[in-house]
């Protein structure tokens, strides 16, 4: 549905995007991840025809952003970061204005606005001026703005930033709901959010794509092997460490802390993507140690992200 090809963007001498290539499929929820200043917002701004690429192109359906910006803008609903709405307008007037811009009129317009008021929970603030609203409500008005034209593609730049935990959950559910029928692209720096919401993530660092794939696949691929957390009771920590290090498949072993008498806690890293739990457990059973905790650590996107975007 959306094809990004060899996208470059320069701000003066600074190259914000370097040869970006990726595609977004219909009905997909795609997360754009990356540290601050990685190029997420720039990518979204080019996609929504707010900025022009220095070179390269984006195709939406069969339209090119350079030649058919109007057609593309018609298909895309966009919520920029921090939702810069017209502060002096009343919420209802603002929505009516956006509806008119989207070419809605008469009954259709009233119907669409009513639906969005319900969907985004704007009932209590509908007669307030936008600048009086809290951050959360402003974000919701921004979301209503983006969804006004019932667009095929929704582009959201950090939609949950600055919201309280309840609102974050609400917005995430909303995104998931919309994502069932529409294509959603959103950027975030909260990784658990991407994990919970996205079908696929693209991780950008310094204008370059460093990873692109389904969240679980990325976690497996870049997670750096599995980690097993073990806690057991033994007076001689050195001995335990030495014994466990000898188990086949163990790459390294980190002693976490020496809490209390005889408690040994450690993280055991395996080579490759190998399950070392059976081998470890055999040793523990043979030695007759008292086992307190034994589990494989879930591979999170956090590890992947840290590994891929670490400085140098």
């Amino acid at each position, binding site marked *: 549905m959306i094809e990004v090809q060899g996208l470059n963007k320069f701000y003066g001498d600074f190259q914000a995007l370097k040869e970006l290539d990726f595609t977004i499929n219909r009905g997909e929820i795609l997360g754009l991840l990356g540290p601050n200043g990685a190029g997420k917002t720039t990518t979204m701004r080019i996609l929504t025809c*707010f900025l022009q690429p220095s070179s390269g192109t984006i195709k939406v359906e069969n339209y090119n952003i350079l030649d058919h910006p109007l057609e593309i803008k018609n298909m895309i609903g*966009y919520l*920029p970061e921090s939702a810069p*709405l*017209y502060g002096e307008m009343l919420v209802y007037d603002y929505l009516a204005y*956006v509806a*008119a811009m*989207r070419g809605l009129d008469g009954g259709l317009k009233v119907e669409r606005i009513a639906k969005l008021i319900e969907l985004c929970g704007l009932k209590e603030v509908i007669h307030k001026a936008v600048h009086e609203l809290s951050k959360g409500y402003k974000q919701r008005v921004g979301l209503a703005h983006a969804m006004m034209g019932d667009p095929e593609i929704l582009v959201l730049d950090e939609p949950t930033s600055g919201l309280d935990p309840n609102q974050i959950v609400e917005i995430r559910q909303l995104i998931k709901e919309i994502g069932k029928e529409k294509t959603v692209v959103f950027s975030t720096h909260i990784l658990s959010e991407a994990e919970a919401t996205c079908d696929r993530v693209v991780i950008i660092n310094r204008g370059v794509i460093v990873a692109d794939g389904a969240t679980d696949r990325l976690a497996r691929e870049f997670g750096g092997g599995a980690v097993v957390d073990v806690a057991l009771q033994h007076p001689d920590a050195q001995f335990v460490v030495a014994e466990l290090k000898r188990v086949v498949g163990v790459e390294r072993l980190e002693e976490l802390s020496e809490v209390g008498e005889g408690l040994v806690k450690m993280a055991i890293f395996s080579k490759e993507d190998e399950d070392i739990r059976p081998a470890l457990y055999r040793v523990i059973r043979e030695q007759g140690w008292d086992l307190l905790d034994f589990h494989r650590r879930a591979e999170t996107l956090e590890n992947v992200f840290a590994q891929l975007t670490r400085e140098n």
Partner: protein
Amino acid sequence: MSGALTVFRKELRGFFFSPIAYIVITTFLLLSGWFFFSTFFLYNQAELRNFFGQLPIIFAFIVPAVTMRLFSEELNSGSFELLSTLPITDSSIVIGKFLAALIFIALMLLPTIAYAFSAALLGDLDWGPVFGGYFGALLLAGAYAGIGLFASSLTKNQIVAFIIGMAICFMLTIFDRMLFFVPESVLAVFAYLGSTTHFQNISRGIIDTRDLLYFFSIIFLALYATTFVLKEKK
């Protein structure tokens, strides 16, 4: 084009939501009223020539104040990002905002019709130059609004936009009076560039295509330049 109409409606309403509009209207009516009536009774003639004579210099200050927020405010708050990602072309945005400013100035001029009626009450008023004067005033307002809009697209800062717009409008206004500095070979060019003579021709009731062409070219050039600036920002 329906996009331009939506922008126009939104901006015109926006003028009346902001206190600046009322300050500008009040200032304009005070200034023009004072200039007009302070000499009206001295001349002892039922005509509005004095009012229209002062208009270019008053407009040079007032019109950029009307237009200064149109783009600067959007660029500053970031709402321009939302506006330009809606399905509308840059030129429609520019035209919508320009028309809103023009109609606002027309509404600002509306109360001054009272001057004409006062004059008509006191003597035998020739309505021809009055109509010509208002027609010319609209053209002049259009030209200055175009320039003000262009200035507004250049910067995020409304004050800077006002000063740039005012400087250009002021220059056009006083060109005619500065002609003795200009070498004779280019005199005709500079004489044509000044707005006051063109305005005075029309406000005398003489509609000449040269004067019309002058105002329409300034409006077109200013709006074109504004669209160009917006495009360059991308």
